[in-house]
């Protein structure tokens, strides 16, 4: 093949990559119309809010877990049930459910992570008419022998609840198969992050491609990630200006705005500590032991949500490692307003990042019912300028 041929192949590849990324970005901007279509196509979507949800069990029962991460919207129904001092994820998700905007769901799974989720479960159950309602109660003490048997029992109880709803047993081999599918997804996500680290894909595109999996059958996402990685891996860093490397820490990014703005402002996300990102796919489910026990074990040993406890230093130690490994020059904490678990950790994380690593940080709070991209931009710009010294 001549030189022109290589160029043509490269161009075609770039176009194919762009098509995949664009589709994912579109999903990220507004996944809900797509979820309604899933239903029309015969899937049975179940809403999940939390990265601790054992999605494999739902998947094995023929249900399609889909992540609900709120929406930018003004509230019409939720204020009659939830006070203004809880996070906008809870408020906008409940609002959508009460407004009938999520009627295509079979129901939702409530994992007990924080006080808001614990009460949201009751409020949701009492005021909606979805056929399925799942609860999974987690311990806060993770990674300690004392809590593991409890967690295993909870996973079993959760499975029985799903079986009851599905009207049939979930066979172990079906569950093992689902575990395999999700583990493959985790391996592909790791590869995606490696590709990002090598500069083969930017932070915005990588995050979009990861998140897309929340809103489709996982096998399909695996295929998509595979197609993507085949085209970008080994391609090396795209030429271009040097970008300011940032790490984003927090819960979820409901919209792509933050990642988009970071790119626009001459920086890029080189790693994250988000529950829709790195924390979501951290650690594998051991395929050699019983699936329930293995699912419990993974939750128990994976990286913690700040609403869980391992030791008082675990989050900082992990963050330090991530900052060092990724070469991030700044950390953006992107949190939900009123999110106590995250807000409690902020002062010590920020202080020690500054004192021990000389890494500056910025705190941005997200309130979906009064979302302002302009404000986000101004604050990010000032922060990035302090790093570059402009």
């Amino acid at each position, binding site marked *: 093949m001549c030189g022109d041929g290589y160029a043509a192949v490269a161009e075609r590849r770039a176009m194919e990559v762009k098509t995949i990324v664009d589709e994912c970005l579109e999903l990220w901007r507004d996944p809900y119309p797509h979820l309604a279509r899933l239903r029309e196509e015969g899937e049975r979507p179940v809403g999940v809010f939390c990265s601790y949800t054992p999605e494999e069990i739902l998947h094995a029962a023929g249900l399609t877990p889909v992540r609900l991460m709120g929406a930018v919207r003004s509230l019409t129904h939720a204020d*009659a*049930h*939830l*006070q203004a*001092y*809880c996070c906008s994820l809870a408020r906008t998700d409940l609002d959508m459910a009460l407004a009938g905007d999520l009627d295509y769901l079979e129901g939702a799974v409530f994992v*007990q992570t*924080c*006080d*808001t989720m*614990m*009460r*949201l479960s*009751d*409020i949701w159950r*009492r*005021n909606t008419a979805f056929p399925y309602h799942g*609860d999974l*109660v*987690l*311990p*806060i*003490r993770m990674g300690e022998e*004392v*809590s593991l*048997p*409890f967690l295993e*029992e*909870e996973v079993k*109880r959760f499975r029985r609840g799903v079986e009851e709803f599905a009207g049939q047993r979930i066979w172990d081999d079906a569950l093992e198969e689902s575990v395999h599918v999700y583990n493959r997804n985790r391996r592909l996500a790791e590869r995606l992050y490696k590709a990002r680290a090598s500069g083969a894909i930017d932070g915005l595109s990588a995050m979009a491609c990861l998140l897309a999996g929340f809103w489709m059958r996982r096998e399909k996402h695996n295929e998509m990630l595979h197609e993507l990685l085949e085209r970008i891996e080994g391609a090396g860093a795209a030429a271009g200006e040097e970008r300011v490397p940032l790490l984003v820490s927090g819960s979820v990014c409901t919209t792509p705005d933050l990642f988009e703005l970071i790119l626009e402002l001459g920086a890029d996300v080189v790693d994250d500590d988000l529950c829709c990102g790195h924390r979501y796919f951290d650690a594998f489910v051991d395929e050699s032991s019983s699936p329930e026990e293995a699912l419990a074990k993974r939750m128990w040993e994976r990286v913690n949500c*700040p*609403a869980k*406890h391992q030791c*008082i230093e675990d989050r900082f130690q992990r963050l330090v490692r991530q900052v060092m490994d990724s070469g991030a020059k700044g950390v953006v904490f992107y949190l939900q*307003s*009123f999110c*106590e*678990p995250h*807000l*409690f*950790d*902020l*002062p*010590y994380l*920020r*202080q020690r990042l500054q004192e021990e690593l000389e890494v500056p940080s910025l705190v941005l709070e997200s309130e979906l019912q009064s979302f302002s991209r302009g404000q986000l931009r101004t604050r990010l710009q000032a922060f990035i300028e302090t790093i570059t010294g402009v």
Partner: protein
Amino acid sequence: MSEDVRERTQEEKADRERRKIKSAGAMRELMTKYYLEAKGAEGTDRHIAWITSGAPVEPLIAFDVIPVYPENHGAMCGAAHMNVELCEVAEGRGFSRDLCSYARGDIGSAITKGGPIGGLPRPTFLVACNNICNTVFKWYEELARFFEVPLFIFDTPFVRGDLPEHLAAYSVRQMHEYVSFLEEMTAKEYDEARFMDVAAKSLFASALWKEVLACNEHRPAPMTCFDAFILMAPIVTLRGTQEVVDFYQGVLEEMKRRIEEGVGILPSERYRLLWDNIPVWYEMRNLGKLFMELETCLVADTYTSAWTFEGVDAEKPLESMARIYTEVYLNIDLERMADKIESLATRFGVDGMIMHSNRSCKPYSLGQYDLAKEFTRRTGKPALIIEADHTDSRWYDRAQIETRIRDFVENLLLPQT
């Protein structure tokens, strides 16, 4: 001043004196002695543990550890109108104003030693139990970093419906772990006989407290729940000691005497209301006056009864206590909470309910809108929700809240739809 008027004021004074709860003095003495002892122990070889209000304190008493309660201290700072300045110290260190004001005030006080008693004595270790909220373990993680002392977390996952066996078993395992932790901290061995004695006293005091609260079923009520908020300090902090048993025996005698003599806490009791959530500590005096003026007695509440434990099995004290601590009021689902509220409403014969939507306490407050509706559905009585914060007065709008309470009470006689 005419003879007539003077006589009337003297009569009023005598009447006020007659209505005053005398045990309040004994309580102040008891609490002063306790805080003096705790403060005096700082820097000696006695162990001091900071502990959350819903955590099992009996093992600490049995190990001769002095328990110290930041939440009780927070209430004290709030009532003394000193918590806002302490919160501001924490806010200056990066703690969000959206965090619990008990936690912010406590972190502020740990830094500055501020507050009405010059801060709490330094802990040798910490004990947090999340049966009241998940805020506490994050707050105590911060304390553990600040003081560089060990933290024991007694983890009580949320109970939906009946307490499942695997959850009870988890609590029991931790109770044993807690005891081992204390053995390690204090270098003493667990003494079961001592623990049984403490548990028995705790149970006895708790039973007395329950009887005290039940006295308010009587009309006119011998106290308001605002008095109960004050009188509950010993059951929260020192249950398991003989002094607390003696104290509540005194309180119970006084309440029974008041009932016999027909002495109500208010000069006139027209309406009886139920209170939900933690008190608005900095506003107790003003609210107390308002309710007295409205001839309305807050006869019961969902808060003070959280320390009335039942069902301790003398054969298995550790095990049964572990179960009890897991199923406290804030760790159960809305249906069970509604049952509890309904039962209080019936027992105490209330005309309505006031719910404090407390910015600082999500597990207590989220769900109140649904509970209010459920309360009205089940009892036919109205409910009012007021927005405030237990110790951060910057969130309190007195004029608006007082107007709403007045309107609510005036409308109490109207039929409910």
